[in-house]
Each structure stands twice: as C-alpha cells, then as structure tokens.
C-alpha cells in the first residue's frame, strides 16, 4: 500500500504501530514534533500552492482588464467565464480530453497488466533487470520521448518510410490525429501503470492462485475472481497515475496533435498566452481541477478507498 504513489487524505495509515514509549521518551510530545517537522511543507504549500490556486479561483470570476490581465472585485463577480468555458466551442475540448485520457488508461491496463504479471511471476532472477527496463523510460524525459514519436510519425518520418518500403504506401498522415495523441499518452504514461501493478502483484500470495485452482476455478475465473481483486490497489493507483496527468496533458497534444486534437491543457495555455483571456483560462482551470477531484473522489468511493 505504501509503495503506491497516491495517498488519499482519508486513507488510514499503513499498519505501522505507533512508536511505543520505551523507558526514555523524547522531550517533545508527538504532536509538537510532528507539526514542527511539517512546518516547512505547510508554509511552502500554503504560499506556493494554496494561495496561487485560490487566486485562479478568484480570477475565474474576474473580468478581463485592459492594463492588467484580470480585474477582480467582490462586488462584481463575473460568472460568464464559466458559460464561455462550457460553450459549444470549448465543451468538445473537455470531452475530447476525457476520452483521450480514458482510452489511454484502458490501453495502459491492457498492455501493462500482462507485463507486470509476467515480471512478477515469471521474471525469475532477471526480475530486477526487467524492472529497470520499465523504469528507464519512466525516468526519461517525457518531452524527448514525445519528440521521438513526432520524428517517427511525421510526414517524411520513419513509419511512412517503412510502410512505403513494404508497399503499404508511404504518405499517410499520422500527426494531428486521435491515433497519434492517444498513442503518445499511452506510451508516455505506460510505466506509471506497470510499476504500481507490479508492486501489488509481487506482494500477492501465490498460494491464493493455487488454492483457487484446487477449489475448481478455471484460469479465467481465477484471473477475474482472485488475481484482479487481489491486485486492485496497484490497479487503482495505476489508473489514477495515468488518467490524472493524461487528462490535463499539454506536451503530447502540442507535439503530436493539432487544432483538431486540442486538449484542455493546450486551451488553458492559449488563454494565458496568445489568447490573453486570463479569466476564461482560470475558469477552465477550475473546471479541470473539479473534474479531476470529483473523478478521483467518485472512483475511489466506488472501488473502495481501503485500496489506496
């Protein structure tokens, strides 16, 4: 549980016993020591995370200014930014972001689960080598990996060349398609799925599988009724670790996509740069945050938060 990268606030702590009071106690009581050690974190986060986020929330009900980007006043809350953010011009972009991220997440599960399972169960002595092979792309620059796909998928890129050489036509358009963006997202976030899945498969008690066979379950039934429920903590962490960054991604649609495949991340970027409409961009940011928080909440509630 503790190796999964996401920790919900309401999740109970790992079963670590509280430090038992031996003969000598530390001079500071636990609450004082804990709060003291967390002081730098909370100061940093309040100043550079909470206040800036609240600022964006405030800007989302502000007004475009001529000299300053946003004019905000309590007496004049402008709700129309939200209406604009959800109008027929921008709403499809939200939907597109969600379905791109959802499809990529599903693909990551389908590709990642068998691999994680194989490494954990059949990796043998080379298990750590295989894990390193997953970690290397995970630690390799996302930007550069997307650039590599751009290089491969472009009009005179490697893929068209190979397809041309084997007689399948070398003039396909790959960039700026749904295919390219979903491919990029899946490729980019696949290690985020494999690592937590591996962690929970590896911890799974093998005798559970044997017991299931002994009790007359077939392979399919064992997969769905024993293996998948047992590894669900890793699966849940993996789904969150892929979906959340994918839905708000900027780099992939920017490098592999175009106008037709714009996602919400690019749209917000534009509003704060070339579009120069900070209130609209802020409203979109708030909607994106709400989407993710509600999504996480509902998902965790449905699949059980004990898993996190």
């Amino acid at each position, binding site marked *: 549980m503790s190796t999964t990268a996401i*920790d919900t606030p309401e999740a109970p702590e790992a079963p670590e016993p509280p430090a*038992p009071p031996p003969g000598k106690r530390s001079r500071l009581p636990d609450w004082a020591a804990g709060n003291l050690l*967390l002081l*730098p*974190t909370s100061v940093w986060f309040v100043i550079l995370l909470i206040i800036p986020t609240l600022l964006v929330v405030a800007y989302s009900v502000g007004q475009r200014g001529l000299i300053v980007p946003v004019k905000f006043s309590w007496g004049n809350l402008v709700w129309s930014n939200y209406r604009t953010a959800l109008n027929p011009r921008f709403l499809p972009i939200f939907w597109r972001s969600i379905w791109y991220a959802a499809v990529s997440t599903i693909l990551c599960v389908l590709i990642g689960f068998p691999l994680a399972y194989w490494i954990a169960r059949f990796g043998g002595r080379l298990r750590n080598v295989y894990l390193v092979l997953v970690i290397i792309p995970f*630690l390799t620059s996302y930007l550069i990996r997307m650039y590599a796909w751009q290089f491969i998928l472009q009009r005179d890129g490697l893929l068209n060349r190979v397809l041309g050489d084997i007689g399948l036509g070398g003039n396909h358009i790959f960039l700026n398609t749904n295919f390219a963006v979903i491919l990029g997202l899946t*490729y980019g976030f696949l290690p985020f799925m494999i690592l937590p899945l591996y962690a929970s498969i590896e911890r799974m008690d093998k005798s559970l599988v044997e017991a299931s066979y002994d009790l007359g379950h077939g392979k399919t039934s064992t997969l769905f009724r024993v293996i998948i429920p047992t590894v669900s903590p890793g699966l849940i962490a993996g789904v969150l670790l892929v979906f959340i960054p994918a839905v708000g991604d900027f780099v992939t649609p920017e490098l592999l996509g175009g106008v037709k495949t714009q996602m919400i991340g690019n749209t917000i970027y534009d509003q704060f740069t070339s579009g120069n409409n900070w209130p609209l961009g802020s409203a979109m*940011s708030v909607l994106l945050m709400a989407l993710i928080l509600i999504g996480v909440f509902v998902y965790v509630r449905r699949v059980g938060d004990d898993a996190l």
Partner: protein
Amino acid sequence: MSTKSALRPRYLKLHAVLVFAFLFAPIIVLVVFSFNQAKSGTDWAGFSTHWYSVLRHNEAALQAFRKTLKVAFIATFLATVIGTLAAFALTRFQFRGRSGYSTLIFISLVIPEIVMAVSLTAFFSRLVHVELSLNTVIAAHVTFCIAFVVVVVKARLSAFDNRLIEAAADLGANPFQAFLRIVLPLATPGIAAGAMLAFVISLDDVVITSFTAGPGSTTLPLYIFSSLKFGVSPSINALSTVVLVTALLLLTIGGLYSVRASRRGVGAIDATTLG
C-alpha cells in the same frame, strides 16, 4: 484470444518482448538518427558526429543546459530536505491533523501541471509582483517535487522496524542518537531515491517552467520545446541524446549506490519504491 491462454507464460513472454520493444524503439530511433549525417528526414546518409560538434558550439543550448542543472540541483536539495522532514513526521509520529497535511500533499500531486503553471504565474506576477527569473522557476519546481520525495521516503519508512529504535534505547541511545545512527542511515536509500525522482522530474519540466521563467531563464526543455516549433532537426536529436545519457548516468550512479548500500546491509532501493 481467450484469457485461458493469455496468461500462459509463453504468451506473456511474447507480450513482454513486444512491450519492451514498444517502450524502447522510439528512444533508440532518436539516438541512432542523431548520428545521421543528413540534414533532415530519415534518409540515412552515413554515420557522423557532426551534430554533436554543432551542439558544442551552440552557446544557447549549453547555457540552457547549465541553467537546467542549476535549477534541478537546488530544487532537488530543497524539496528533499522539506519532503524528508514531512515523511518523518507522517510516519514516526501520531498526532491530530495528519490527514490535513496528507491532503496538502495529495493536492500537489493531483493538481494538473497546467493549472499549477498558470496559478504560479498569476501569483508571482500579479499578486506578489516578483520578477520572473530562475528563482521563481526553482520555487515552482520545489513545489511539485516535495510530494514525490514525501511519497518515496514514506514508503521506505513505513517498512521500518520499530524494534530497532527500542533496541537502541535499551542500549542507552537517546532519541536524537537513535535517529542519527539508526533511523537516518536506514532511510537514506529512500531519501536518495526520492531525490533522484525529484531531480529527473525537475530536469524534464516544460509547462510549469515556461510559465515561471523570465526572459533570461530558458532551461533546456524550454529550449528544445521552442526549437521544435521550427520542425524536427538532427541537432535536436543530438541534444536529446545528451539529455538521455545524462539521465541514464544519474540512474546508474543511483543504482550502483543502492546496490552498495544494500551490500552494507542497509537495504536496496526497492525498484517499486519509485512507483
């Protein structure tokens, strides 16, 4: 294909080979073509290190590289110190309000990059009126790195055997000594793994950096990103290769360190700690 056969080791192995090929093919293609003599495209015109010597004289790229390293080192250091303290507090002490802190850390993990980027630019330029510079970039990087350090160090610490502390106390160590001589050495691989993760994440960031960087603070990802607007070029392949090799070197050093640490009986950086 039925699930029955899908879970057979032979098919799983084939699947694994294909996935590894998928994961590495683009990276390998990029590296190979950085040694291509041709000016553009995928025509192979012979092996050449031409683009690397071009790169060596590209002052803008070199400067961006130096700035990236500077940001990554400082941000990693700060985030590691702050995050490690937090992880210690969250695993070693029982107190009310812990869930509040966990919520803060959780928010920083799930907040979309683009939202953090625009909120920080609004904060720096409109609320506190700080000029955007390398310092604002560092501050932003620390903000998104802290949580990763906390998660990794916490994972390491929760596997910690509390009896070791009791043993130390029984043997006459005061809490401070026990911390310094027992807890810290045992947590070091986790702290190192957390720092490594923070470093590579900082090294790679585009979105948040682009919103918090001032005119003179172009980092390497920003440099690469803006060069891509003019299309794919072999010199970017070469630059990317340099970045990849740097990250790999770092990973190797970290890996060797963790192997050595585990030989000393301290315990390896569990690969899963990074997940």
